[in-house]
């Protein structure tokens, strides 16, 4: 993903945070790179989907800390998609690397 796109995503995120939650369901891309979820915070409407793509050489997983969902092992280049049907605050982690985290607010 180019820096321009990342910058664009970051701008959208800031815009999303400064106004009310998006009224309609969206489909958001999250990049896993250098042992980070990018972006690290996200606000979406219920019914939205998020697709995580692993850009590292190492394996990562995507799991919700409360145990709502969990991907299998994602090798470099692989993706995982989840649709957030219910509102709430989801703390996302990689079960292989405890230092990695992301917060997704679903409204």
């Amino acid at each position, binding site marked *: 993903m180019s820096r321009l796109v990342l910058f664009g995503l970051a701008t959208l995120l800031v815009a999303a945070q400064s106004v009310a939650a998006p009224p309609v369901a969206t489909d958001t891309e999250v990049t896993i790179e*250098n*042992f*980070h979820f990018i972006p690290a915070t996200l606000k979406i409407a219920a019914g939205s989907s998020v697709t995580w793509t692993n850009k*590292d*050489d*190492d*394996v990562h*997983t995507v*799991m919700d*800390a409360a145990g709502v969902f*969990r991907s*299998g*092992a994602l*090798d*470099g280049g692989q993706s995982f998609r989840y649709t957030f049907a219910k509102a709430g605050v989801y*703390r996302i*982690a990689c*079960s*292989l*690397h*405890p*230092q*990695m*985290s992301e917060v997704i607010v679903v409204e």
Partner: protein
Amino acid sequence: MTRHDKYTRRDALKCLGFGGAGTLFALAGGVLTPMDLALAGTDKLSKRAAVKPLFVQISDTHIGFNKDANPDVAGTLDQTIDIINGMAEQPGLILHTGDITHLCTAGQFDQAQQILSRLRVTELHTVPGEHDTTDPGAAQYFSRFGKASNNKGYYSFDHAGVHFMALVNVMEFKPGGLGSLGDEQLAWAMADLRHRSASTPLVVFAHMPLWSVYEPWGWGTGDVAPLLAELKRFGSVTVLNGHIHQIVQKVEGNITFHTARSTAFPQPIGGEGAGPGPLKVPPELLRQMLGLTTVSLVEHPRSLALIDSTLTGAQ
């Protein structure tokens, strides 16, 4: 103070170049001594040690990994097995301290088992790594290796007067946390040790370090303290782990903590870089950073001696 606190990766690479053919670390009486690996390929070392190897530890074989850091992990495991099969005195058993596979698929487990079946030593004891347990219920691992532990993952056994305890610290993941044993396993471990004589040599093995190596990357086990307290009364305790793909060692009283090299790829020293990913090194250096650990029983005083050797040593 852990050993790597004082050394940078550059120092480590310098050290690797020290022996020409590679460097080997021998532990005797709690002192870690680098020795020229030129000795290891000859009979001199085995005569000097003059003991039959009790067991060999291999770790982090990551079958299925195919990125730049080592596109041929099957080949380097094969080479590791050739080294073990070529030992003049065959060890009594083999310990695999986890991350047998990279992605926990049936195909990768099948391939790993096929390669491991080449070992002349048929007694293989395993613990799972976090890479072996990413499928629901860790079904792939337990369907193959669950029998020894009645599908709990942790178990103990005796061999040559040494008590071995296999522990699982990768199943109770907490974000931001360390490895964890959990209350049930901890209670089992304490009960298993309680009535055992303090003169029994102990080997405790698990995938993630059972001591704090580098907490920001999760290199430790959060709830291990009661177990370590119980281990203190024993005269000889050897704690063996994998997970971090490099040798880090600490001696505390009668307890020697030791992590093994991987047979697949090295990882950076804790805190160097973005995370503990596969470390790409020049191809000619790779086999100096992969290896196995041979453990022998020394009778006077009754304790265990550890020798780390690299894949370069056998060539």
